[in-house]
């Protein structure tokens, strides 16, 4: 949970998408090899405005509106990275990421090892993540588990503007491919203090959102905010002291932080948005029980999406866990 700060800098309040934008701007300003490619990222500044202003500032060669072809985006980003650039590729929505799985599974994490270290793929693949903004079908997905099971890549998801900027800068300078999810619910709703200069938040380190002694909630992405609400309710209604860990990097996992916290409290809830079966929460639940078995005071509670497709938005609040569901799960653990 350390951070490296380049120089003293003004601190402003930004929302998460502004923080992303600022990180991209700083990275492009500092390194000519950094370029952006994707659909509508140029003149339009991205459908969430994450790349707003960058096309004007850095030109059509470095902020590239591509044809509507995700294999093309991902494949050419891989080629660009292998050939010395630092591409930041955007997939417009989580729901369209399956079309790049072929490139991700067969190549993204394999090129370094297939070439025995001669080639590397220092790229960032950005995509909005998750639900609850009343978006159309296929625009509210949480596909992280597919990526976490794939060797050779890293998977990151911030939940605060500060982390979004620092993690994205770290991801861009990372020598290996990073899949960078941005919780779209938080793009505008999450605001916070962000220093204006360059800084990084290290990959692979979780964030301790709040300390507690009775129960640990392990979570990531927009669900972090939901869990904070649940923790307040649990404090108020149950007098429970809840510790919350925001993973920030899903893989490589900050297992030390997870084991330390869950070992301390002995009661665990894992909360996330994806279909629960076979999710990243399953890996966490497995790891915690395998390594902290004798410290567990209650069965681990996983709270995730149901194992059905994400419904259209009228029902999304019943699909994605809300604070009540987290509270119910926490009470099961607390009262065991």
């Amino acid at each position: 949970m350390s951070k490296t700060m380049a120089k003293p800098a003004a601190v402003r309040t930004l929302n998460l998408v502004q923080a992303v934008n600022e990180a991209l701007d700083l990275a492009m300003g500092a390194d000519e090899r950094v370029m952006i490619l994707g659909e509508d990222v140029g003149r339009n500044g991205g459908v969430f405005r994450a790349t707003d202003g960058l096309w004007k500032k850095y030109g059509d060669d470095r902020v590239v509106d591509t044809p509507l072809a995700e294999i093309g985006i991902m494949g050419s980003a891989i080629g660009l990275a292998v050939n010395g650039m630092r591409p930041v590729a955007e997939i417009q929505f989580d729901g369209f990421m399956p079309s790049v799985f072929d490139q991700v599974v067969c190549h993204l994490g394999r090129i370094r090892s297939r070439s025995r270290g001669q080639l590397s793929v220092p790229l960032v693949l950005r995509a909005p993540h998750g639900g609850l903004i009343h978006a159309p079908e296929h625009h509210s997905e949480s596909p992280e588990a597919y990526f976490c099971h794939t060797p050779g890549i890293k998977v990151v998801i911030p939940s605060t503007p500060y982390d979004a900027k620092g993690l994205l800068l770290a991801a861009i300078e990372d020598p290996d491919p990073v899949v960078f999810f941005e919780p779209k619910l938080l793009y505008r709703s999450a605001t916070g203090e962000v220093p204006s200069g360059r800084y990084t938040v290290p990959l692979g380190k979780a964030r301790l959102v709040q300390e507690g002694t009775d129960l640990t909630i392990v979570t990531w992405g927009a669900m972090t905010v939901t869990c904070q609400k649940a923790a307040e309710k649990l404090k108020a209604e149950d007098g429970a002291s809840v510790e919350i860990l925001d993973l920030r990097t899903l893989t490589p996992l900050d297992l030390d932080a997870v084991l330390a916290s869950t070992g301390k409290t002995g009661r665990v809830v894992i909360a996330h948005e994806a279909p629960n079966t076979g999710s990243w929460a399953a890996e966490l639940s497995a790891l915690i029980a395998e390594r902290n078995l004798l410290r567990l005071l209650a069965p681990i509670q996983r709270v995730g999406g149901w194992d059905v497709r994400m419904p259209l938005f009228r029902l999304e609040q019943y699909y994605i866990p809300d604070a009540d569901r987290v509270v119910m799960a926490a009470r099961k653990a607390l009262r065991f």
Partner: protein
Amino acid sequence: MPLKTVATLEVQRLEILSPDGTVDEKLLPKVSNDLLLEMYRLMFQIRAFDERAIMLQRQGRLGTYPMITGQEATQCVPPLLLRKTDWCVPTYRGGGVYFARGMQMRYALLYWAGDDRGTHFPDGNKDMMFSIPVGTHLTQVAGLAWGEKFKGKGGVAVTYCGDGTSSKGDLHEALTFAGQFKLPVIYVIENNGWAISVPRRRQAASQTLAQKAWGYGVKGLQVDGNDALAVYKAMSEAVSRARKGEGPTLLECETYRMSHHTTADDATRYRDAKEVEAWKKRDPIARLKLFLEKRKLWDAKKEKALAAETVKWIDGEIRAYEETPAPNPLNMFADNYDRAPWHLVEQRMELEELLKFKGGAKILMELPPTEGRFP
């Protein structure tokens, strides 16, 4: 042995009805007056519907909605060549296609209001839901057409994709299969000039999209997509080829997205207003109207009556949509499998628990009835 030419191709473009209402009589297809009037009605009504839907969205009564205006000829005319039992799969912008297929537009509103019950097609229609990940339906429609070939009754499948979507590899594999197995399928590229903020010229660097067909042994044709008569003629020939087992066709219908990409988009950020102005002169509805007027099939009185009827119809659809009771959250678990496995049974009970936690034990009685098949 020389540098020799081994194949030549001509890409043709079909235009029949010019913006000023004059026609190329030689090319004019046989269309009954009734059918001409039906085309006009569909186009007129779907435009009015589109405008109202946008208003609903602006008033917070609808979710994100993709505009149709400008593309009425390309959307409303092809379905007129189809049987109910032919397959028809539009894009997410294809409200006009569904309308021409006879869909009640209350369902389109429900869908864009985030209600899963919006995928409701007329009984007996072979419609399939569009795919939101664009282009991913293209190979599926090849499969639908393949199924028709097995049935051997002359059934066909028609589907659409945008100019942007034509860059997806899915089109390549779909056309490869269509050409290879001579499938009774028609691919309509609805080239409306834009893919969100990306103009047509930033997709394929080829002069036309129609010429892609040639790479697959598929027949290709460019059509003035704002010319209802050209669309009709091109489509009727494509459908009749398909029915006779003569193979697939790719039609590039050149039209224009007159509005924003969706209600969530602001086209002024990236698009020159002059371009929009120029396309106004090529409006498909005004053009057909001129033609009908010249043929004495249409006049101001009829127009007024149609407008009045349209308002009533739209009001009715909006009412039906807005009076639809909220969906029961438990519906999510219906129709995922023919028979829900244990984990969905368990999860549905968990959701019941949650609902009770929120609303008390009586809540399950107060919810609207569940729909769909479970377990």
